[in-house]
């Protein structure tokens, strides 16, 4: 396990990316990625929650009894998610409306629990916070890449701005959840191929 901030960043963005290496947080990948704006806000939300929950778990780690460790982590995560939901509802009502139930679903994002348990439980608060933020970032760029393709082909827009001429037919499938499976599979394939090639090169 890397423990220098730069290594953590590299690990979370690429070598040990939460989405395409650890295959975590897939449910939200399917749900929100048909639109770049929603994906962006969802990613920001996940970054916020992962960062702060890892931080809090790390601060409290010496106090938490082993028996109730998991349930306390869940409580901390749920706390930050609900805070986020409350803040969005009060100050960004339009976005809160667009995201609907998905904000609450951040609680079920396994990346957050995974990082709190695997990293926050055994590292210092600041490093854990950094690990949480970068994990969120690793999640964010993969989701944004998928959302880019889905919004472009499904709606012909990017961030709601029309870019494709209207004579190109829109792909209804791209708007619906199954297309995220295809894109996710395709992306995994491409990235694994690149990684394997690099490994083979460095081995030779």
């Amino acid at each position, binding site marked *: 396990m890397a423990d220098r901030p730069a290594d953590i960043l590299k690990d979370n963005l690429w070598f040990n990316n939460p989405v395409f290496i650890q295959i975590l947080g897939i449910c939200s990948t399917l749900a929100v990625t048909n639109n770049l704006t929603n994906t962006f806000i969802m990613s920001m939300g996940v970054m916020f929650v992962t960062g702060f929950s890892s931080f809090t778990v790390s601060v409290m780690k010496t106090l938490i009894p082993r028996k109730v460790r998991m349930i306390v982590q869940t409580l901390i995560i749920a706390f930050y998610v609900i805070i986020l939901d*409350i803040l969005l509802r009060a100050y960004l009502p339009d976005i809160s409306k667009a995201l609907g139930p998905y904000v609450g679903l951040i609680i079920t994002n396994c990346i957050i629990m995974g990082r709190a348990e695997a990293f926050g439980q055994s590292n210092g608060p600041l490093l854990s916070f950094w690990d949480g933020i970068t994990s969120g970032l690793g999640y964010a760029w993969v989701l944004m890449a998928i959302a880019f393709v889905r919004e472009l082909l499904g709606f012909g827009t990017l961030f709601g701005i029309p870019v494709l001429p209207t004579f190109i037919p829109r792909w*209804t499938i791209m708007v619906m959840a199954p297309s995220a499976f295809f894109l996710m599979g395709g992306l995994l394939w491409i990235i694994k191929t690149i990684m394997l090639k690099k490994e083979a090169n460095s081995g030779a």
Partner: protein
Amino acid sequence: MKKDGFLYTVIFSFIVAFVFVFFLSLANQITKPIVEATQKAGFYTSVLNAAGIDPGNDVKATFDAAFPGEDPDVVDLFTTQWNGQSILVRRFSGPGLWGTITGVLAVNGQVDQIIGLEIISHSETPGLGGRIEEDWFKNQFRGENIPSGRIVVKKGTGEVDNNPNNQQVDGITGASLTSKSMETIINDTIQRIKLEAGGN
């Protein structure tokens, strides 16, 4: 006290749960007025838009001028005389494909013409059924004559139905079930308005 002991675990869990929930309730209480104000303003705007009244800069003032003394917390059917025309606006909610669709429907005093339709909340598929909140869909209802008191949402053809006399609007391509739900909800609402307004 032993950290893994029974007593410590119970006390620790209790305190942690108490502290976190306390801060949540606090945040909720502090933001409550803002959330309620936003929701109320959104509702006023929807009612005014459905009735074809320009909400202007001060939504609350326009609403009070158009619907004096009608409190949305109490009533579901709003009546107004606007520019000599009597308008009835009814709040509705009904089942869509994935969840409840809520909104307001405005009709004229004789309930034989739809004035307008606004969607307040829904949980239909974004980009498919979710398009019921788009203007092209809602505007089809505007001015539609409904002598029979019913409207038909056709199978989506991709062509907007601008004929105000055929009692039909075009549905959404790829969202037949949501379109069908809208038809049912609108027709139920028209019937309900007739019943409720019939007493006057």
